């Protein structure tokens, strides 16, 4: 289940509604550590938060004259990890961007980066809310 706000037409900025993480994905993560003894969920989310934050910095740097290779690489990495933690809107954006860039004609990279940054920030907020309610 995705958030309505994570659609392509969703408004950008800090006032966007709070995104939530996909319940099914979270359930799968919990299955890895049913009684929570190993703190798997927390560790995974923390790892995601750290890596996502770092990549957002990288993406923002590409908002100017973007390098398609760097953008595609970030999209690829974020694609699977965001899917793993249930940030499905971000995962979908990553897949779309990666597919488009690999097709050969980069075109307007700016829009892609903006979209990734926006979805990434939403996911970062959602993870933050999970980790620090």
């Amino acid at each position: 289940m995705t958030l309505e706000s994570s659609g392509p037409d969703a408004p950008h900025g800090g006032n966007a509604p709070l995104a939530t993480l996909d319940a099914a994905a979270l359930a799968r993560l919990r299955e890895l550590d049913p009684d929570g003894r190993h703190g798997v969920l927390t560790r995974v989310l923390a790892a995601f938060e750290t890596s996502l934050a770092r990549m957002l910095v990288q993406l923002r740097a590409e908002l100017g004259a973007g390098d398609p290779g760097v953008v595609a690489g970030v999209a690829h990495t974020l694609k699977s990890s965001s899917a793993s933690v249930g940030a499905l809107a971000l995962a979908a954006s990553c897949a779309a961007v990666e597919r488009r860039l690999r097709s050969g004609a980069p075109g307007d990279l700016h829009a892609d980066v903006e979209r990734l940054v926006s979805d990434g920030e939403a996911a970062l907020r959602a993870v933050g809310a999970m980790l620090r309610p």
Partner: protein
Amino acid sequence: MTPAHPYADAGLQVQPEVLLVDDDEVNLLLTELALRERGFRIAGASSGEQALALLRDWTPDIVVLDALMPGMDGFDTCRALRRLPGHENVPVLMLTGLDDDASITRAYQAGATDFFVKATQWGLLAGRLHYLLRASRTRIELERSKFKLARAQDLARMGSFDWWRSERGDAAGLVMSPEALRVFGYGPHEAVGLRTLLRMVPHDDRRGFLRLLHEALRHASVVATDVPIVLLDGRQRIIHVEAEPEFNEHGHGVGYAGIVQDVTDRRVAEDKIRQLANFDALTGLPNRRQLIWRAERALEQARRMGHQFALLLIDLDRFKIINDTLGHGAGDEALVEVGRRLRACVRHSEQVMEGALEAAGVRSHRSLEAVGRLGGDEFVALLPEVAAEEDAERVAQRVLETLREPIFVGGQECFVTASVGVALYPRDGASVVDLLRNSDVAMYSVKVQGKNSSAIYSPQLAGRGREKLELETALHKAIERDELVLHYQPKIDVRAARMVGAEALMRWQRGGRLVPPGDFIPLAEDTGLIVPLSEWALREAAKQARVWQQAFGFAESIAVNLPSRLFERSDLVEHIHQCVTAVTVPHRMIQLEITEDNLMKDLQNVIPSLHRLNEIGVEISIDDFGTGYSSLAYLTTLPISELKVDRSFVRDLGVTPQSSAVVTAIIALARSLGLRVVAEGVETLRQMEVLHRLGCGVMQGFLFSRAVPADDLQRWLESTVLPRKAPWIGRASGSDPGTDAHRAAGGRQYR
């Protein structure tokens, strides 16, 4: 955690160690957790560089690589990993996106073992890892066993090959393992075709080998054969080829898979063993075993094809003399030379290929022809086909002829002659054993008749065989072994009741048994052994005369029997002289007896000796007188001193009037010639009395004493004659002493 894993097997008791490489820390963490949950031990690396650093001093069981990573990606990492020593065969699983076909190809090119789609279905990933681990272990085992096989093949000088025939335009081909190439002297990577290999087979063998291969190919049958080859460096080897046909799905033979093995050493050893088992080590000729084998084959062939074959037994004459006088080394040399010469007398075939007999056609038995050594100085010539006994006889003559040349051994020339006995199949025997025995009988008949000749077997010869030859050999050794003894029979002057001499008679103590003279004296005469025997007897008699002289003043003579051939020897006088002077007794103490037959047979040759003997004081006595056909004219001129009346006349005294007439005549003759008369074989008092009445006063016989050992004779004298206790003493003393004045009668009484 699941303790018993569904993929676990015997080789998987410990947790497999996994190196997990992923730049996405979330994914790295998740995968790590999931795999750890499934029994793996995980080390994580978030970049290719970090992974390679870990691998510098650690080898995981498997590496899981994310394909797309910033910086050094999965492909670069995999390539770098493969270059690290010890990581050439570590299984590497490359994780790619689902839709990333290009990466899959690149993954394999980079050296990845397998790829897997990146997903969160951990169970599938774990299953794939187990599969790869198992494949890896299988591969390691395979590598190890390949290595072992290669090593074993190398040690066994063995290698494998595959050959396939040309089909539907595809050329025929041969693939050989490096070990197989090595068998043929090639390096491990050289390309060698079947044609090249076939050219290594010597021309003479190639045709047969090719025929064998074509035959096998046509029937799609197994190939198993040894073939000689010459390596490029000129060394000759023997290669064992063993191959099984391979078939396609339609059952058509498409090629062969097999092994080649260098069996030269084994063949050399086998040949050596065969050589030792079948050939005489000294002469190199076929030995008894091989000869008998050949003879059996020859017999089968002769029986099947209805022809004759011949066995020639060749026995060297008096070969022992060479061994005894020149030593065994010289004897061996002579045997080698004899073997060499005999071999040239026949169409000698060194080898008979077993199984070749049937193959080589009707004349194949010719290859059996050979000369072999049965042992000792006995050889055999095998003639596998003869048309008539003359063929065999011709070869026998060739054998005798070839030995006529002297043999140079031990620094001097020797003459070796042979006696050859011939037996023909089927006439002279239906089995090899019979033929050998009968050729032996024929050979022996040659020996008896004076050697250095040949004889063809005939049934009349049988029965005079081996035993006599053995007796001869034993008799030969009898002198050295001190088996011969002289027994003495006294000559008695019945009127004076005293011993006036003794006759020495030879006895042979053979293995605790006393062989009577009749059983070995004729043989000794046949074989010439009588000469050394007689010489020994003369020596012995002289010694005994000396012993008795000292013991009881014996002053008469001891008579020794000699055959005429001894009188023919110019050294007889010298020999007797040595015998008596050695023991310091006078010559007259030796008397010689020669039979009338013997004397008359060789009269002309014997007379000169008799004269010389007489001159030195050795008297001659004629033995068995009355049985021969003496020329009385000669008798008057011969230098003889004594006649001995043959026992047959004495036996019949008082039974047939003729005997007393003969004895009377002999006594009259002796008297007129001035000779002594001695009667032999006196067994009864009646015979003694008749003889005495007829005028013969000196006698020998059981009535007085049989021939006894020297010591016994002395005891008999002391216990019987001197005390005058015997029944015959006194019976003749009262009668007419007669005029046959025994020359010794005036001799002193003993004691």
